């Protein structure tokens, strides 16, 4: 997926593949600007009007969404596939009552009378845990708290019982306590409605509990993909290690320091040569600047894929040292010595 921009052509998302099934949750994790949001907006055709060049396939229930016409795609949006966004205040129309915004979502996809749609709106607000929904349905978004706004957004997304819900940083703009409530709400609704969820976030903590599978994105590509349990127990990519080391863990050693990933995400106009992560990777070798790694399954672990040029056993030893609380430099020194001895 390629965008023209004033500074040059942006290769926002490049060769990514993922799938998600009903009742399951896929977490897409990465820093700002890694292409997480663009890939999900593209799913709904919301990047079409910006002159983007999109290639590939987005298959939903056997139909390629990229080949659908605008009107066919409209019938999918908000109906089969719904989306919620990061900032619920700016994502809700400030001048329309919450009820009206729910009603029009219901009526966009079905021949429903205004009264019925309003009943449905009240029902939805109740479903997402907004107290006194029959009264709050006539509130304006600014009369809601942040958490209630995101609940209202979720209600809107669920209006037509979608089969897939794409949640783009759904809790980032919220207080921590409210975050937990919203995540619990999404989990409950997933159980009740059996929908698939794609959870996009920069925060591994958010997907830790919810996701069945996690894809880690860097510079518009997926660099590692595995079950959530594997990502946390045996991550393979140095970037994933960096993400894990930069969040606090209750079960880790208390004295373990949080280690930020040095540097900034690369420009997607002229990404680094070779492995896109090499300029920020503490373990990179000279040849990593030339060779571009492919996303390949691990030997003996077909469900775990990684795009890294380091040897599998080197990676295993590096992670063992990092997991025990070592810094990247310590891990590198130790593995290097072992390597010399061997």
């Amino acid at each position, binding site marked *: 997926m390629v965008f023209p921009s004033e500074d040059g052509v942006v290769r926002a998302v490049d060769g990514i593949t993922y799938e998600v099934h009903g009742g399951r949750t896929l977490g897409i994790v990465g820093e700002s600007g890694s292409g997480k949001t663009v890939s999900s907006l593209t799913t709904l055709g919301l990047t079409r009007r910006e002159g983007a060049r999109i290639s590939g396939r987005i298959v939903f229930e056997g139909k390629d969404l990229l080949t659908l016409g605008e009107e066919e795609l409209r019938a999918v949006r*908000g109906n089969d596939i*719904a989306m919620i966004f990061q900032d619920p205040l700016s994502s*809700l*129309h400030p*001048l329309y009552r919450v009820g009206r915004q729910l009603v029009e*979502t219901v009526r*966009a996809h079905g021949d429903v009378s205004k009264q019925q749609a309003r009943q449905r709106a009240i029902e939805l607000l109740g479903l997402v845990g907004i107290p006194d929904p029959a009264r709050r349905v006539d509130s304006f978004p600014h009369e809601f708290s942040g958490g209630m706004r995101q609940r209202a957004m979720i209600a*809107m997304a669920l209006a037509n019982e979608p089969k897939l819900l794409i949640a783009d940083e759904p809790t980032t703009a919220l207080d921590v306590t409210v975050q937990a409530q919203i995540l619990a709400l999404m989990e409950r609704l997933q159980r009740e409605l059996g929908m698939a969820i794609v959870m996009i976030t920069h925060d591994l903590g958010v997907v830790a509990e919810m996701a069945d599978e996690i894809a880690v994105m860097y510079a518009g590509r997926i660099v590692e993909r595995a079950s959530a349990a594997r990502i946390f127990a045996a991550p393979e990519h140095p970037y994933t290690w960096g993400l894990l080391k930069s969040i606090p863990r209750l079960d880790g050693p208390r004295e373990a320091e949080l280690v930020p990933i040095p540097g900034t995400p690369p420009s997607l106009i002229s990404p680094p040569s070779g492995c896109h992560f090499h300029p920020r990777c503490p373990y990179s070798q000279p040849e990593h600047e030339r060779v571009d790694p492919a996303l390949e399954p691990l030997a003996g672990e077909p469900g775990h894929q990684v795009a890294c040029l380091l040897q599998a056993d080197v990676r295993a030893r590096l992670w063992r040292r990092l997991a025990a609380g070592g810094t990247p430099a310590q891990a590198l020194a130790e593995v290097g010595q072992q390597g010399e001895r061997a």
Partner: protein
Amino acid sequence: MTRYIIRRLLWGVALLVIVCAVTFVLFRVLPTGNPAILRAGRDPQPKLVKEIERVLGLNKPLLVQFWNYLKEVFLHFNLGYSYATSQSVRSLIAERLPATLSLTLGAAVLWIVAGLGVGIISALRRHSLADRVAMGISLVLISAPEFWLGLIFLYVFASDIGQFKILPGAGSYVGITSDPWKWFTSLIMPWIVLASGSAAVYARLMRASLSETMREDYIRTARAKGLAERQVVRHGVRAAINPLITLFGLEVGVLLGGAVLVETVFNIPGIGRLNYQAIQSSNFPVTQGTVLLAAMFVIVANIVVDIAYAYLDPRVRYQ
């Protein structure tokens, strides 16, 4: 809210007093001519001039004159009497109000419909040929003064002097009650000329405002919900229109100012032309009466706009 409205109305009255004072000073301290001399005939005798000044009350101190005027206006709603015809200014204005209302209300409708319509189309098709042409024309219309534009229209379209004799020209105005069709056709050109400036301003503002709102997150939400593009645009327009409403009160003033010129060019017997003639003949009471009326319209329009805004933007609450 009620307290807010009362406060605004009191401020409005205070503003009217100030407008009175300013026009009073403008025309009596820096007069266009001495009304007594203008009325005293071809070879004015000083005695006669003195006598006329006494009759018109011009010999009293300025402050006394002002005080008497204010008393008459605010206590008896009496705007004085014309120096030229001795008719009451109130009846002069009442006589001419229908023509001015016909002109300004029609122009206001045209201004808003054309301005918003062109602005919306331009915003949705930015950088298209239609957008460029519309914005180019709007720039010309904003820059063109009404009297010039009016003369051009007469020269091109008027049935008497025009190159294409399709529309009734200057002086063809008749009241709506005597002949509605003639009333309508005679006002087509004045409406267009009077509305053009404000419509052009609104078109440009609407284009900017809508282009901005169409990039908002809630527009993305509207699309993600699967709304038809027509509804998505309605979401955008609803939000984009608010900043333009605040300007409505100000544009009413611009429109009334333009009415003076348009009525003069098209020879429409309205308040604008009355005002123009009064200024030319140093007819102070008529000048002041018409200016006061226009000021009142602008003040009321602004109060109405501010009150309406509270309903149009639920986030705004007045104390």
